[in-house]
């Protein structure tokens, strides 16, 4: 205490403000990590720090980032969603198969996919709230059931999509005739802004943070905590549906074996983004930065010529380091 105040007296007002912001903000850590990663790869490879690669990274971050937004919502309530990528993959399969061999209009197929993903999020939510099961176990069970369902539904096939609506998010636009942008990036910005607004500017958002911080206290202060948690899982399911749409835009082919590490990568992004796994603390901008860190690392390793076999190893190390750093910075009393 004494040392801190002594240091604060010596620091200039601006420096002190910066220090306070750094210690209190959830986005400072991931921002520094992102800048460091970019600097390292920019200095060590020739191909990393280019406009084209920057655009590629942003395209690569869309799916993981969207999954991570849903994951953030769940983790803010002190839960965890191991089934998010499995929900999304089943969503892509259903949309692609209905629109392809099913002959259903693309809009209807997309609507079915969105309803399905939202409902599946709701199933997890009901099991967590009504039956008071731990989210980790519920979503682990959901993960195996949904992975199996996807495999059975696809029966060893993958389903290409051709409909312009379903691949719309992958459509390219050029800024200044040079910078490649996709419609998906716009959707991502809208989604981020929308969820950020709901979390920080509405009473629902306050309740989400409160439930994650102390569910019992929140319930005793008159909030219907079960309804709040259920709404979070439903909204997360909807976000996974958007992730499914993004995935079809990026690669117009629904594959049951895709995104097997999606749950882990999204958790890594959320943890790097400064969201506490114990709930009640975290932010959407932090998660976006976290997702960028994960993607920059994967992209940078590829640019540096390191075998893609190492990516799973890197993801594993990254999630542990992220939690460890979080624990060391914030102290043990979380």
């Amino acid at each position, binding site marked *: 205490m004494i040392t801190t105040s002594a240091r604060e007296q010596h620091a200039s007002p601006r420096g002190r403000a910066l220090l306070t912001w750094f210690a209190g903000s959830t986005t400072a850590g991931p921002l520094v990590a992102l800048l460091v990663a970019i600097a390292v790869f920019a200095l060590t490879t020739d191909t990393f720090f280019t406009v084209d690669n920057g655009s590629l990274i942003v395209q690569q971050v869309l799916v993981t980032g969207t999954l991570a937004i849903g994951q953030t919502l769940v983790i803010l309530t002190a839960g965890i969603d191991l089934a998010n990528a499995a929900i999304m993959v089943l969503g892509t399969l259903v949309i692609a198969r209905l629109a392809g061999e099913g002959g259903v209009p693309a809009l209807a197929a997309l609507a079915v996919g969105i309803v399905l993903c939202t409902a599946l999020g709701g199933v997890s939510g009901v099991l967590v709230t009504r039956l008071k099961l731990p989210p980790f176990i519920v979503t*682990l069970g*959901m993960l*195996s*059931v949904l992975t*199996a369902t996807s495999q059975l539904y696809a029966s060893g096939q993958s389903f290409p999509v051709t409909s312009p609506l379903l691949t719309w998010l992958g459509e390219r636009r050029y800024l200044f005739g040079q910078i490649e942008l996709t419609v998906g990036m716009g959707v991502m910005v809208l989604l981020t802004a929308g969820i950020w607004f709901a979390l920080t500017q509405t009473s629902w958002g306050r309740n989400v943070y409160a439930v994650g911080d102390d569910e019992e206290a929140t319930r005793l202060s008159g909030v219907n905590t079960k309804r709040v948690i259920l709404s979070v899982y439903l909204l997360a399911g909807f976000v996974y549906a958007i992730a499914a749409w993004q995935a079809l835009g990026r690669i117009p082919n629904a594959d049951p074996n895709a995104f097997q590490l999606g749950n*882990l990568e999204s958790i890594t992004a959320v943890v790097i983004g400064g969201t506490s796994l114990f709930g009640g603390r975290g932010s959407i901008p932090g998660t976006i930065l976290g997702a960028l860190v994960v993607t920059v690392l994967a992209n940078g390793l590829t640019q540096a010529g390191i075998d893609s076999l190492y*990516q799973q190893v890197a993801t*594993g190390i990254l999630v*542990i380091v992220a939690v460890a750093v979080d624990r060391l910075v914030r102290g043990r009393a979380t």
Partner: protein
Amino acid sequence: MANTLRSRLASWDYILAALVVVLLVTASLVQPGFSGGFNFANSVSQMSDKALLVLPLALLIIAREIDISVASIAGLSGVVLGMALQAGLPLALAITLAMLAGTLCGALNALLVTVVGLPSLVVTLGTLALFRGLCYVLLGGAPITDVPPSLITFGNETLPGTYLPWDIVPFLVLAPLFALYLHRTATGRRTYAIGGGPEIAVYSGVRVNRIRFGLFVVSGLVAALAGVITVARTSQAAPDGALGFELDAITVVFLGGVSVLGGKGRMPGVCWALVLVVALRSMLQLANVSGYAQGAAVGLLLILSLLITNTTHRIHAALTSRRLRKVPVPRPAGP
């Protein structure tokens, strides 16, 4: 209180045992070939590696921790075994190296949980990816099929004159040891104490972190043994060996009546649950249900088992609160 608790848990064991008997009888009546010795040997052998993973996992969950990296440790140990064999090392040395690798993996988990103080769910989620990733990095995707005949015999033959497969023997030896540890030693009692309330255990003088450390290391060691059995059973060391086995193991532990919140559960219940899952998988397999659908069935069973334990707990709580209500309570004045 302790008495009712014990009787309730004991009764869960009996419910499971009854379920097992019912399932076995129905299966042998309905499913031709189920009660045959060949099917018995085959089904038991198929679960022999998963069965081993269940033992340390039960201890960890009772101590309010979890290790979901067990299947990846088993896979990595299998890869180490395969590479050692390929390098021309004798079988005994290769198996020792594999066990050593598993122990080191367990020690890494233990270190991160006890010394760094991270939640075991996230740590082992990370090492699940890390260890599996190392399998692929080491082998580069192609399995090693250069396995000595003695190991293949161990993984595919039965004890002479019986239908008991060789590869279930390590489980049959270890299961009583784990039960003895949990129910008959002081450290076993302390494991329950940690799960019941880690803080209280610390203040009661239990060396919580030392026991936790030990449990994670044992988990790694036993997972390595399971990995060796997987190699023996499948006659190859593949990078995706034992992939996804953690789900079956976790399901068995919860189905066996171990509480998600720690501090509750008994080895006999866990063993009955194991028999139940073996019988269920065997039935589904004979009915030509695909592996994926079996996976879905296990996932559903995981959620169902939690539902059942949860509901029985609630009914029990409702009954006890009704009993309490009968005790005359002085009524406060006023409306």
